[in-house]
């Protein structure tokens, strides 16, 4: 079972888990806001966004926990087989949650969940049967992110607002970040660190969008929702 796809530069070890935890926290904030609004209005697409960000948050937490575990156990007396086993479980769980989160995001415009399952199941089968599961997963998630970048890009050209621009750029950067992680195993380990910085900028943009949205709702809305 080969799951290696990226190589982290030695100076970045440990920091990656910190970054992933930050991404998870931003996702939790966005999902909490989406659920709060959805409960007030009963708007299903907003609820769907809430679930998407919840799944992404869980995915990042699993990734961060796996990275931290590996870092702390590599120097301990634990057998290599056990370490690799935990690593594989962590990776597959991270992949599953990431695919589900992005899949839900990509199909949020549909009332029914059928398109979500129709895209998720083949993606999971492809990942499970791939020679390199992580590489396959990053290819699929990059596909989702490419679709979402195009969708949000077109939305920006329709709306021309700062909020839609932030979301559009955030997903383009997330796509670049995924491609960077994918290429770090082939070109340079530094790309792994750069990808995390790009993702951080992306999540800050998503958070910036939330701030602008709350500001648009007025001071009462900020007080009432946050």
């Amino acid at each position, binding site marked *: 079972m080969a799951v290696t796809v990226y190589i982290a530069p030695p100076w970045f070890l440990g920091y990656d888990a910190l970054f992933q935890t930050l991404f998870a926290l931003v996702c939790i904030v966005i999902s909490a806001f989406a659920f709060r609004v959805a409960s007030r209005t009963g708007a299903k697409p907003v609820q769907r966004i809430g679930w998407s960000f919840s799944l992404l948050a869980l995915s990042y937490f699993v990734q961060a926990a796996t990275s931290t575990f590996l870092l702390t156990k590599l120097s301990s007396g634990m057998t290599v087989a056990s370490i690799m086993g935990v690593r594989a479980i962590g990776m597959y769980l991270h992949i599953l949650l990431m695919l589900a989160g992005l899949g839900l995001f990509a199909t949020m415009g549909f009332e029914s969940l059928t398109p979500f399952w129709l895209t998720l199941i083949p993606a999971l089968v492809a990942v499970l049967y791939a020679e390199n599961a992580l590489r396959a997963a990053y290819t699929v998630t990059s596909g989702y992110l490419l679709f979402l970048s195009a*969708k949000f890009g077109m939305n920006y050209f329709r709306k021309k607002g700062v909020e839609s621009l932030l979301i559009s750029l955030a997903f383009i950067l997330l796509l670049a970040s995924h491609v960077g992680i994918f290429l770090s195993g082939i070109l340079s380990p530094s790309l792994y660190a750069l990808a995390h910085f790009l993702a951080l900028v992306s999540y800050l943009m998503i958070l910036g969008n939330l701030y602008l949205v709350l500001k648009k709702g007025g001071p009462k809305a900020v007080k009432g*929702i946050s």
Partner: protein
Amino acid sequence: MGAPDSPQGQPSQKRGRLEIIHDILRVIERGGGQAKPTQILYRANLSNQMLYDYLAELVAKGMAEQRIGKTGRRTYSITRKGEEYLQGYHSMRAFMDSYGIS
């Protein structure tokens, strides 16, 4: 024909359920917290049937209250939950717009 008196100040196209609820509550809010059914009917640009269906729903959900005056005339007032809906609606619309959900 559009709705010159619509709360958004622009002709309304095909409105969704959330927009209609918003428009009704907005009319009530702009009327000082209460409004007569006829005011809501015209300003929110609704048919008679739709108006009473939505008002019944809003009262059932606790977003609006029905009051009957001494002359037997009905008025509707917005509740705290209705105000919260309006606040949530603005944020929700801005949030949905930024993610391209119509």
